[in-house]
Structure formats: C-alpha cells, structure tokens
C-alpha cells in the first residue's frame, strides 16, 4: 500500500470492505496496495481520518506487530504543525490499523503533475515546513525513509508530511531481490540506494528533501526517471541535475544532495535557512490552480455522509456556535482542513469516555507521557529547543532506569512557534491527550498567557523554566482563584529585577544607577523595573529612571541624557535588540560604569549581535551553565556528579554540551518522573492532585535544588550573575539574597 497518499480521488467501498474499524465509520477507499488498504473514516464526533489497515497475512510476518507498535509509539511523539498526527492505532488487531488526521489537499506530486513546478516562494515555504516536520521526526528518534512528492500534502495553511516511518516494511517498497531497499527510487539517498542499512539515518531524509524540493521547483527529479537500476546508479555516482533551480536555493539544495551523509545540513538548519515567512492562507503561498484543487477536494468531502454541521472541535479556539460552524463547513471547507489538530484532540478525548457505555473502559495504562509546550521555531527557539532536549533526556533516563516498570514514559512535544495566536491550540494538543500527565513549558510569557486556560481546564500541571510573567503564580490576591496550575522553577520578573539590583549593590561605587525601562515587552520591562526600584530602595539607593517607547532606536540621545543626569551604572530592562543598541551607545559615549541586564538579554545572541560592545556587561539569568557548575570546586562532589551525568547524557545523545535552559528543564522533568515512579506503586496515576504533590517536592537535581511556595513560586534566589568576558559568559555565582547596604 505504498500510496498511503491521501486522498486522491475517493473510491467507493468494495462489498468485501468492513463498514467500520474500531471507532471509525468508513466512507470510502483512498488507496490500496499489496500491504493493505487506506480508508477514509469518520469518528463519532465527525472528524475525518485516514485509516490504514494492514492485511492479516502481512501482519503475521515475523516481528511485524512489534515493529508496528514501536513505530506507532514513536510517531505519536512527533508533534509538529507540519506533520500529520497519528490519532489512533491498534497493533494487536487481527488486521492492525493506524489512523492519522485527514488532509484533503493534493500531494506535491499531484500538484506538480497537474499544474507544473511551484514558484520559488512556495518552494521555500514548502521546504521550511517539511524540514521542520523532519526535525520533529528526527527528534523523536525516527527516520522517515520515504520523503517524496506523494508523501507531502498541500493544505491551505501549509504543507503536511505524512506516513513518517510507520509500518513500512520490505514488502511495501521492495526494489531489490534482497528486499533491503526501502523508499522510492529517484528520492533515495545513495546510502539507501546501496542498501547500506546501518548508514541510513536522518541525513537520508535530508537528501530526499533535497530531491523533493528540486522536483517541486523544476518539475524533474534531480536524478531523472526511468529504469530503477540506472536511476539508483545515477543517485550514487552522478551529480544531480539542478538546472533551473533559483539561484538563492541552489547552494542549499546542493548541500542536501551531498553524497556523504555527513556533509548534509541537519533538518533544523534547513528550516532556519528557509524560514522567511510562514503561510497565512492558501492564496498566500500556493499558486491559484493548486488552491482551486484543494477547494474542490474540500468541497467533495462535504458531500460525504454524516456531516454534522455542529460538530465541535475542528477549531479548538473557536466558540462552539453551531451557526458559525455550519457556515465554515459549508463555506470554504476551512473547518475540514483545520481538522489536523482538532481531530487529534477529539480522538484522544474519546478515550476518556469509557464509562458512557459507548466505548470500552480504558485499559490500565502502561504508557504515560510528559508534554513539552515550547517555542521551537519562533523568536525564542534557542531556548525552546534547549528545553525540549532537557525534557527528552529526562524521559529517556527514566525509561532506561525503569525498563517499562511500572510504566514507560513518552515525550510529546508541541511547538507554539512563539506566537500568542495558536498557542492555545498548541497547548490543547497536549492537554486533551489523556496520556499527558504534566507539561514542561511555556518558553515565553505571551504564549503562556494564551495557553494557560488549556492547562487550567484540564488540570494539567505546567512547569516552566523560562516564563517569569508575574500572574502565572501571583493570582488570588485580587479576588480571583489562586494558582493551582503553574510551577515556576525560576524567579518571576519582579524578583529577578530585585536580585539584579542587589547584584549591582555588590559594586560599592554605585550610587546613582540609571534604570531604563523600554516598552517592547512592557510586562517584562515594568516588572523588572519595579523590582529594581524595590531592590535599590532596600540598599538605600535612588536610581535615575527612564521609560521609553518600545523599538526606540535613538539610544545615543537617550543614554547621553542619562549620562548627563549623572548615572554611574546602567541597567537595561528591555529586550535583547534594544540592549544591543544601548551597548553600542554606551561605548560610543565613553561610559565607563558597569552595565547590567536581565533574562531577556541573556544568551549567545546578545554576544553575537553586540560584539565587542557587550564586553564587560553583567547579565542576570535564571539558569546555570552546567559545564561551569560541574567544574566548580565549591559544589559538593555528589551534586557535581549529577551535573556530570547530565553532561555525559547530553553529549551522548546530541554530541554537544547542553545549551542554557537544558539543565533546568532536565531537572524539572526528572522531578516529575521521580514522583510518578514512587506514586505509581500506590495507585493509578492521575492528573488530579498532581500539581499540589509536585509543589510540595524538595528536589535536588543537576543544576541545584528546587522548592516552591504555596502559590507555585520558586523559593530562593534562583538568579545567577554572569559577566561578559572575551566574548563569553563567565559565571560569577548566585545573585545575592540581600542588598549590600551603603556604609
């Protein structure tokens, strides 16, 4: 059943076909092959799904079911807006099946065949999104192995990668007598073509992506077509035919098509190089004829039986208004197209309804999940990816230690892209999944504000290592409900501002610090500034304050005024980009006093962007560098051992030392998993009461200890002072817990 392709022209069910499979009512056939059949199905809640059923005789091949199960589990960990989610599966059925959200768009192959090559901008967006999806696949420990035009579908809001590495067996795409080659000729990497099985890894997908993009932009596969043997020979030995590829894309495609896997870029890098923008609507990123095809197919779906115009859930953000829902469905098919995330949510929610008689009671779980809600592709992606890695290492550590007893843990990752819009939906992908017990996140304040209701509704604890917005924890004093959802492993911004001020008081010469609040992120700036005001007051210091509009660029004038007012230190309560401007102005104006900044400025980007202007700055951050901690003789040997364990695991898994925020995320997830492991013996695991139980933990991890107040706020300073020296952050130690008073 090589064409897992959705949907193609929909064919009627054959008399021999079942009318339903598990909870799916079957509406028609999307494709069929030697392995089985792909059906279009509909859930009781009205969502469309592609249901792939494997024939019993195929399923009885040795190891098939075990591999199927493993791959489905892995695929469930892949959460990307650009990958079609697996919404259900049963590897133990006589005919094992797996369901994915249904996307009615044409594949890249269909679109190019029908309408010719895609314009450059479409190809860039296509490439960026598929690269992102592949990054998620690779992060889940999978290799797709069959990236090709038929496996990328075009939807209004962007492309979708399907069929990632699941139940793909030798029989499905066997091309050689030895049944070792898996994939599609013309889109195979040399190592695949030569069936060097042990050499096939993520770079093979990158090669295939290069072929896919070359095809999309020229209409020709870069190694031609025709006889399979010749095609494979050319793949291994010849240079790709990239004539007609736009100049801007040429170096990237050539790099993807390098013969040596080690020479190819990784998927994340490709995504970064192609991300200039993301699609808003189909008209925004696809040529008109392709949009028309999508619209026609969507419209065809509307004529299928059992459309319930009031079915909720296709858009988690939308109010459940029947009239509007009906309008959407009958209008442009937009709701059907939006089914990706919503169907996932509904299907999983259905698992919780075992008691209503319609569904069997849920089996006792032996697999649970920790979620990650992070910015993996937006402005804070460096931090978000570091957090994901920390969480993944913690989950893998748990599974290695416990070997499935009493349960196995999965990591489910949802990318909020650092945007408020869509963050709630990204959160609900996790909170509506009943296997998810707790979530690490969010990366940023704004996405957290948007996403919080999902966690409150579902009672899922949310543990953050980077979001300092005060009201995540400081609630209830104004008459509302107190926080019972968020645990914050860092200080809130106000406290961070206090500790920043107290760090400054360590320098005895400071009498009149200049505190600048710039309003690009006004919550952050205001809270840091209030905290600094409080902190300096405790030290008997009256700062000189300035407040300026966000994105002001004339820092030379503003800082000149502050210097004229007699400041002897500078404190920047604003975002990184303006700190860079301030650093330049301070240097140009010959200011010699100390300069300070907080969390938003901390990170490698500031060093890169400010260059030598950053030299000598002090930056307070809520995180520690594990490398410096492991080498710190002031730490107890036992504590350093934990840190070293993290360093070793990270190097083994990712080949590098951990970025900032990885260690704290590792710790927080370890705190959750260790509590789960001990309490699993006492009864079934549940979200209920979990926040309170975690809040009472006194946990010591690789980066230090964590304890929480009644409101979920971190106890302790949790702020660390760094100085920029020779273009790097030198760790000075924790910020002082009290001000150094002036004599």
């Amino acid at each position, binding site marked *: 059943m090589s064409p897992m392709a959705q949907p193609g022209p929909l064919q009627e069910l054959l008399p021999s076909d079942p009318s339903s499979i598990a909870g799916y009512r079957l509406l028609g056939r999307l494709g069929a092959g030697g392995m089985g059949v792909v059906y279009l199905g509909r859930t009781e809640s009205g969502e469309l799904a592609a249901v792939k059923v494997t024939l019993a005789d195929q399923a009885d091949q040795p190891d098939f079911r075990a591999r199927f199960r493993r791959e489905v589990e892995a695929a469930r960990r892949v959460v990307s807006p650009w990958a079609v989610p697996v919404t259900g599966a049963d590897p133990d059925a006589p005919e094992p099946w797996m369901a994915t959200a249904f996307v009615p768009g044409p594949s890249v192959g269909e679109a190019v065949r029908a309408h010719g090559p895609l314009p450059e901008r479409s190809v860039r967006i296509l490439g960026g999104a598929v690269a992102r999806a592949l990054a998620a696949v690779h992060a889940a420990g999978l290799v797709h192995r069959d990236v090709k035009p038929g496996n990328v579908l075009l939807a209004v809001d962007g492309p979708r990668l399907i069929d990632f590495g699941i139940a793909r067996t030798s029989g499905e795409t066997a091309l050689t007598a030895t049944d070792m080659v898996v994939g599609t000729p013309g889109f195979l990497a040399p190592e695949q073509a030569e069936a060097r099985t042990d050499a096939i890894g993520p770079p093979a997908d990158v090669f295939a992506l290069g072929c896919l993009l070359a095809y999309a932009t020229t209409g020709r596969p870069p190694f031609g077509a025709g006889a399979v043997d010749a095609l494979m020979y050319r793949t291994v030995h010849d240079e790709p035919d990239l004539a007609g590829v736009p100049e801007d894309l040429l170096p990237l495609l050539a790099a993807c098509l390098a013969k040596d896997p080690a020479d190819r870029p990784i998927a994340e890098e490709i995504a970064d190089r192609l991300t200039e923008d993301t699609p808003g609507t189909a008209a925004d990123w696809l040529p008109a004829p392709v949009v028309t095809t999508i619209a026609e197919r969507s419209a065809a779906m509307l004529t299928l039986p059992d459309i319930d115009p009031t079915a909720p859930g296709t858009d988690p953000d939308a109010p459940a208004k029947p009239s509007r829902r009906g309008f959407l469905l009958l209008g442009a098919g937009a709701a059907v197209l939006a089914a990706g995330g919503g169907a996932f949510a509904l299907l999983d929610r259905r698992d919780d309804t075992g008691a209503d008689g319609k569904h069997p009671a849920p089996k006792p779980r032996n697999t649970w999940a920790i979620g990650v809600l992070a910015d993996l592709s937006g402005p804070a992606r460096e931090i978000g990816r570091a957090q994901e890695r920390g969480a993944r290492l913690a989950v893998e550590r748990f599974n290695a230690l416990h070997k499935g007893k009493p349960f196995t843990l999965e990591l489910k990752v949802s990318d909020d892209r650092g945007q*408020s819009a869509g963050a709630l939906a990204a959160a609900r992908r996790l909170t509506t999944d009943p296997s998810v017990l707790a979530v690490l996140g969010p990366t940023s304040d704004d996405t957290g504000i948007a996403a919080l209701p999902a966690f409150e509704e579902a009672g899922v604890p949310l543990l953050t290592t980077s979001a300092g917005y*005060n*009201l995540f924890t400081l609630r209830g004093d104004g008459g509302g409900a107190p926080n019972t959802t968020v645990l914050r492993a860092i200080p809130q911004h*106000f406290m961070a501002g206090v500790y920043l001020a107290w760090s400054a008081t360590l320098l005895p010469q400071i009498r009149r610090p200049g505190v600048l609040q710039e309003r690009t992120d*006004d*919550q952050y700036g205001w809270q840091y500034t*209030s905290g600094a005001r409080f902190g300096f007051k405790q030290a008997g210091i009256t700062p000189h304050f300035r407040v300026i*509009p*966000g994105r002001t660029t004339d820092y030379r004038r503003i800082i000149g005024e502050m210097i004229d007012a007699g400041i002897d230190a500078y404190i920047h309560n604003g975002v990184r980009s303006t700190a860079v401007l301030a650093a330049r102005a301070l240097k140009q104006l010959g200011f010699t006093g100390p300069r300070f900044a907080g969390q938003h400025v901390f990170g490698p980007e500031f060093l890169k962007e400010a260059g030598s202007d950053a030299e000598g700055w002090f930056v307070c951050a809520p995180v520690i560098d594990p490398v410096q901690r492991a080498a710190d003789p002031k730490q107890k040997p036992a504590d350093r051992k934990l840190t070293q364990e993290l360093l070793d695991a990270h190097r083994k898994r990712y080949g590098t030392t951990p970025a900032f925020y990885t260690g704290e995320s590792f710790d927080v997830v370890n705190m959750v998993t260790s509590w789960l492991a001990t309490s699993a013996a006492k009864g079934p695991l549940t979200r209920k009461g979990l926040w309170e139980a975690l809040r009472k933990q006194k946990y010591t991890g690789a980066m230090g200890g964590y304890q929480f107040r009644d409101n979920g706020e971190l106890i302790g300073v949790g702020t660390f002072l760094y100085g920029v020296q020779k273009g790097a952050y030198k760790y000075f130690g924790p910020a002082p817990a009290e001000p150094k008073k002036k004599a």
Partner: protein
Amino acid sequence: MRDAYGRLLRAAAVAAGGLLLAGCSSGGGGDEAKPSRATPTASASGAPTASPTPAGPVYVLDPKKAPRTQADAKRLALAVVAGPDDWGPGYVKRSPYLSDPGSWPVLDASCEWEAGTLPRSVLYSVTAYSEIPATGGKGPLRVAATVTVHRTEPDADWEMAETLEEALRCPDQQLRQGERITGLNSLGMPYGVGGNQTTTDSLIERGEYHNDAIKGQQYYTWFQTRVGQVTFASVVKGASGYAEGDTNAVQARVNVFMQDRVKEQLGAQS
C-alpha cells in the same frame, strides 16, 4: 534577616500584582490637580521611533480624519473630554470647569507640579473638572478628565512612556499647595496584555491622596489611554463615603466613553 526580606519582597510583589489585577478589571483614575502631563521632551519632534510602542491589530484609523491644526485638535478634544453627564448621576461641573487653553503642568525636579508651557508636539490639551459635592457625611468626590491631541503618534507614545517614568521618578508628588499624592505606582498595559483588548496602549497609576483640608488619607487613581495620536485620562481623588472599587468602575466607564468618541473622531475601522 533573609526571612524578613522575603516577607517584604513577597508583599511588594503581591502589591504589584494586585495593581495589575485592578487594572484588568476596572479603570484607574486621575485627578484634577495633576491634570495634564509633563512636556514630552523626548518627543521633541520625532525622536526616531521605529514604530509606536504597542503592536496590535486593534483598528485602523482614517488618516484623513487625523487632526493637523490646533483648531482640529480643539474640536476633537472638546468633543471627547468627559463631563458630569459621563461620570454619572450626582456629578456636577466644578468652577472653573475647563482648564485654560495652553495650560500644561510640569512635574519639576523636586516632584512638584508647576505651570509649564505647551510643548510644540502638542496641538491641544484640555481638562474638564467635575465633582459630587460634599453631602450628608460624604466628602467631596473630585474627578477630572483630560484629552491631549499630539501632532504625531510617536509623540503620544512618548507621553505614555513619560507618564510611567514620572511615577518611578517621583512616587511622592505635590499636586498643589496642601495637596499631595504618595506611594505612587504605575504600570502600562499595551494592547494584548493585562486585559487590554481595545486600545493601543493604556496605563494606570495608583497612590495615596492627602489633602490638608480633609482629615485622613484617601486614594488617588489615574487611568490613561492612547488611541493613535490622542491620549485621554480620567482621575479620581477619593473622598470619605466612597469605595475605591465603585469609583474605579465609574472611571473605567468614563474611559470607555472617551475611547469610543476618540475612535469615532479618528475614523477607526476594526
């Protein structure tokens, strides 16, 4: 020692949080005596501001309706500024009712408000004073509304920033002889944060109000909003017999009235 600091800090943090919550649910206010705002020195015609502070798809203003002359600005300000009818039953005009044209109080280096001159970046500014006179055991409840029309949107943006700066620089301010505010806190709520879903930018200030002629301590609330090149504010000086929560609600309503009028005047399309 550490614990004492901890308590102090928590109290401060909670106070800050509470202030924000107050801002979400109601308005802030202002008072007559600190009627207009300081000179937006920084605005000094077009400090290069890449774009105004808050980003938000709030509404689009009709450029054809943007006031360009003092006469345009005066007409708009007088059409918008809230009077006794907006404040509600029992409110009457004070005398004088409107501020003098060209008046522009400035917060000086010693944190006292004094008369200043209208900056070039301001086309027109007016304050309307209202009150509920003292009656049956209740003190006089004095309120005011101010509308300021700037030449450009960045100028108005700078005024918002400087209002925030004033409370940091001078948490204690002398409004006039015998009248002071103390312990002033301020916070901004650009579009999309703190419950602000309707305007480009807003801020609130809250402090204690002291009047030598009135026994005891009252509250002081100032609520200021920006739509395009126009800022408007409402202020309440608490009086015995009135609850802060109640006057906050009135202030919020007055602010919405002015907001709607400004948007209409500027041809806002959402």
